[in-house]
């Protein structure tokens, strides 16, 4: 799949933002006044920047308002609604906490639930697609949720919780890749896709186009596969293993936390790029790929 920068920025930043919202809603860290303002500002900045980025690749932005209408069937529509509800709920939490010093415990918990729900709906946009077998597995939402929870805990300054969550993320990434490889390998052949397998071995003789086109650019053209194994190790180390080790094995402090965050973000972006770049769509079989 084409790794569009807008979608990579969207999923990593908004995931991180909603992850921070989750912890803030639970009162972690327990802050008020100016400190609370800073934390909420970071959460809003990340989630809104991500959501804005997601609109960059739209071909027809003027119709964007309709995207909230099909929540009965569409995960993308649900995602939009969940995100807006979460941002609204946290306005009700943030304003009293910053200016009145009020706890807002119940609305906070409700906001946290919606923050996680938003990340889950984001992950289901990808996990629902039967056409991309690598993504169509239960660990896809788990991976998105652990990114949000772990990254969010890091931003919230909860070093030990973040460490354990990023350790869990490391294991989930490994399992997700393993299962994904098996699922992708069982994708079938050009003979299966064309229904011509009974005639013998089927190969593409001539494609239906002489120039590049949308389907090829978006779904058939694959990048990053040559270095997939190396990139996986880099993503695994940077997003999960290294920051987890730093957070769990060193005494908590601003410098280690910042280092862990920088490593995690870099790894998350690389991992997300790879998530798209190495995913194979079944339509590739018609193109002999």
């Amino acid at each position: 799949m084409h790794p569009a920068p807008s979608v990579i920025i969207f999923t990593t930043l908004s995931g991180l933002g909603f992850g921070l919202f989750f912890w803030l809603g639970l009162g972690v860290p327990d802050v008020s006044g100016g400190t609370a303002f800073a934390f909420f500002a970071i959460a809003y900045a990340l989630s809104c920047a991500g959501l804005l980025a997601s609109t960059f690749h739209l071909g027809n932005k003027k119709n964007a308002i309709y995207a909230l209408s099909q929540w009965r069937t569409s995960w993308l529509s649900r995602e939009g609604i969940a995100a807006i509800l979460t941002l609204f709920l946290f306005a009700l939490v943030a304003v009293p906490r910053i200016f009145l010093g009020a706890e807002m415990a119940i609305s906070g918990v409700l906001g946290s639930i919606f923050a996680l729900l938003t990340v889950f709906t984001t992950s289901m946009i990808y996990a629902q697609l039967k056409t991309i077998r690598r993504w169509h597995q239960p660990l896809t939402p788990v991976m998105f949720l652990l990114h949000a929870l772990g990254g969010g805990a890091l931003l919230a300054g909860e070093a030990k919780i973040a460490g354990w969550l990023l350790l869990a993320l490391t294991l989930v990434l490994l399992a997700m890749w393993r299962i994904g490889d098996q699922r992708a390998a069982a994708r079938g052949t050009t003979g299966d896709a064309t229904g011509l397998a009974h005639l013998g071995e089927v190969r593409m003789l001539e494609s239906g186009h002489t120039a590049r086109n949308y389907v090829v650019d978006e779904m058939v053209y694959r990048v990053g596969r040559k270095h997939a194994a190396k990139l996986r190790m880099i993503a695994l180390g940077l997003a999960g293993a290294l920051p987890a080790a730093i957070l769990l094995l060193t005494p908590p402090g601003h410098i280690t936390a910042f280092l862990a965050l920088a490593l995690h973000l870099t790894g998350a972006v690389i991992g997300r790029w790879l998530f798209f770049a190495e995913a194979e769509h079944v339509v590739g079989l018609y193109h002999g790929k």
Partner: protein
Amino acid sequence: MTALPEKTDKKLGLVIDLDTCVGCHGCVTACKGWNTQNYGAPLSDTDPYGADPGGTFLNRVFSYEAQAEGQPAQTVHMPRSCLHCDDAPCVTVCPTGASYKRSEDGIVLVNEDRCIGCGLCAWACPYGAREMDRDAGIMKKCTLCVDRIYNENLPEEDRVPACVRTCPSGARHFGDLGDPDSDVSKLVADRGGYDLMPDLGTKPVNKYLPPRAKDTLNTQPLEVIADEPQGFLGWLDKALEKL
């Protein structure tokens, strides 16, 4: 709404005969012509006379080669367009309601006034049947020539999809696949018409008719005939050896 209708009154669709198709791309051209000048945004051609031409098509013909062990290879031309699936995943993923399946005839369409061009429907389609038009920024797909088949301004013989009307080899058939007594349904039953990638659960309406069995070639490959040359050739062989 992007909820699929529980049942459609008709199941209009195409039956494509892979035995008869000669791969002339006539249907591709007729489709592009009609759909550029009629329903919705035109199918764009980007950089048509330049170094990197591209464009949107709703129908494309691929050619495959099938070869069984020890048999001669066989060419199969496969036109590919939207299959107007009963369980269309492209419709349910649409966030705006732009994609929909009509309950009256089962045609899957895009309402271009609602489409945001997010491309998720194209990701959900296993068949590569949807292409984003890069000029208009909206998703294009086969309409089954909805603006021809009911068009009373056209002579009756033209009220079929442009690809069917133009096919010179009679490889494309149009009709109601929900009616077991229709010509297309009988054709599918007679010839063992099949679905593309049925395991994905999309329940395509369009069917493909498999190539008919070929005659088997009885001739063995040529044997080496002059291993031990006899008669005149034997004498010549020996004579040449002695030279």
